[in-house]
């Protein structure tokens, strides 16, 4: 029997890596934050960074170059982390809710709806705030459409009896995403030439506009609150991985839990897309990567995936600012360039 040996290798280890994952990710997040603040088109030395940080904390205006850069880079880094964390949280929730490792906020067409609305706003020459607002509105619209179309599959009582209903939700989402893609290409082909560049950057996912400390703080707070709300239902979600019938007979009010978590996902995705455009991939890949280390139990997987998503987007954005400085590369493209090889390497490992 080599079954036991094979499982011992393939199974997430029970002890060390489960416990070590969160501290390791927290340290990684701190290091990524320091790197994001130090490096860019102009690098700040560690000493200057420390002095500028102390000035900022004590409320003095240092007036130095370091202080100015810190004031620019800190909101951007905070937004990057919140966007990554929110998208990874959505991805982890959707993969668990749909019991499908292919699910991701983008598969359900939520980002498609947000992108359509944002593109229309850009084409109409709207400002940054209006673009963000219409993105959020678009996300909400796409989600309402999904709710309306997949209502039976999402909330009907006989979901308990038919696991095949899960794919009905996924299929509806894919259809909404395809519809958004069609509308997007129409908007792009009809848009005035002068605005095309902004639109393409937005579609690729871009943190260039994330300069507001208030928005960054709001995003981080949203991430924290949604993370805690999801954590409350994580044990129930763990049972729902085994099917609604099993979870229900084990004491989980499945319909309520599903409804709460779908709303959490909607807010998280809408917020992330409104702030940074269509940053793909992170919601899909972060849950996959952490599942290898901590297992599929959402109680451990969701916080770990959330932290990893924050680190991934922050690192991708920092690299995007540095490699071709003073040019800034869109974070979404960098995300996939770094993430895809890492993901494939993970899949190839025995």
């Amino acid at each position: 029997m080599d079954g036991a040996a094979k499982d011992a290798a393939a199974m997430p280890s029970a002890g060390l890596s489960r416990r070590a994952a969160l501290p390791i990710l927290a340290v990684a997040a701190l290091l990524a934050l320091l790197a994001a603040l130090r490096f860019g088109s102009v690098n700040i030395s560690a000493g200057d960074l420390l002095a500028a940080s102390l000035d900022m904390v004590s409320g003095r205006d240092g007036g130095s170059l370091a202080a100015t850069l810190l004031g620019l880079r800190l909101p951007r880094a905070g937004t990057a982390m919140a966007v990554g964390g929110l998208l990874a949280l959505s991805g982890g929730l959707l993969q668990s809710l749909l019991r499908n490792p292919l699910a991701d906020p983008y598969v359900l067409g939520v980002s498609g709806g947000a992108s359509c609305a944002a593109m229309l706003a850009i084409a109409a020459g709207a400002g940054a705030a209006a673009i963000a607002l219409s993105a959020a509105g678009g996300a909400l619209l796409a989600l309402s459409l999904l709710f309306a179309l997949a209502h039976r599959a999402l909330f009907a009582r006989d979901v308990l009896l038919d696991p095949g209903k899960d794919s009905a939700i996924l299929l509806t989402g894919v259809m909404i995403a395809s519809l958004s893609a069609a509308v997007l290409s129409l908007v792009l082909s009809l848009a005035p030439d002068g605005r095309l560049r902004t639109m393409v950057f937005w579609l690729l996912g871009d943190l260039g506009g994330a300069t507001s400390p208030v928005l960054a703080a709001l995003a981080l707070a949203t991430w924290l609150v949604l993370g805690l709300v999801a954590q409350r239902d994580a044990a129930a979600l763990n049972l729902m991985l085994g099917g609604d019938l099993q979870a229900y007979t084990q004491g989980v009010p499945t319909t309520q839990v599903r409804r709460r978590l779908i709303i959490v996902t909607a807010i998280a995705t809408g917020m992330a897309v409104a702030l940074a455009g269509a940053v793909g991939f992170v919601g899909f890949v972060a849950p996959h990567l952490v599942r290898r280390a901590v297992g599929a139990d959402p109680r451990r997987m969701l916080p770990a995936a959330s932290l990893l998503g924050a680190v991934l987007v922050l690192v991708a954005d920092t690299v995007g600012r540095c490699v071709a400085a003073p040019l800034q590369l869109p974070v979404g493209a960098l995300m996939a360039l770094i993430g895809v090889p890492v993901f494939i390497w993970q899949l190839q490992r025995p």
Partner: protein
Amino acid sequence: MSTPLISCRGLEIRAGERCLVRALDFDVAPGERWAVIGPNGAGKTSLLLVLAGARPAQDGTVQLSGRPLAQWSVPDLAGLRAMVADRWIDPFATRVLDTVLAARYRLNLGAARPAAADRAQSVARDCLGVMDCLHLADRDVRHLSRGERQRVALAAALAQETALVLLDEPISHQDPRHQTQVLQALQARAACTYVGALHDINAAARFATHALLLHGDGRWVAGRAGEVLTRETLSHLFETSISEFISGPHRVFLSQD
């Protein structure tokens, strides 16, 4: 007489246009073991789902421990009955021991941490041992054979520590040795009450104290196993000629066609 654990009155279950069960009255007293028997598609699983509260009946009432099903909260219900389904959904790699521990969700709500965790571990291992799968504890559920996976599901239901366990074809994937072993292990828990759909008439005859025969067209017969499980009733139920032999302490039924 004590309150029946399950009490059905005038129960009607339909699947689309077909009426599977009509005006079903039956009571299950604590400690009884009921076998639900009938041809394919006769509504055995549907009846179990109705009793579990997971599917609405078209008519009639179900009371569990003297309280109408609708008045039970989902967590309270999970403290009263467990259910072993006949299919399992395992989308991600999960340790066998973790699936059994997870079944104690309700018991872990608000429980004092270290003591509850220790007890959960020992109960989970006991239940795995009873179902002859303690050696699988650290394996990935997705790599088990169907028979092994079924015994893990049975262990999880026992770990839920409920008075009533609903079983949907609990030995459908078991080899002959494990068929006997599983049913004996269930039987050995004298405090437990079982309602189980069983296809194997002979296993049912050994395991059950009572039987409910479902014809699939609304007709049903309920009563003590010794009275209900006879050559005549079974031949009538399965519309095939079934004969009965005596082998030691057991009755053995054989299909003749």
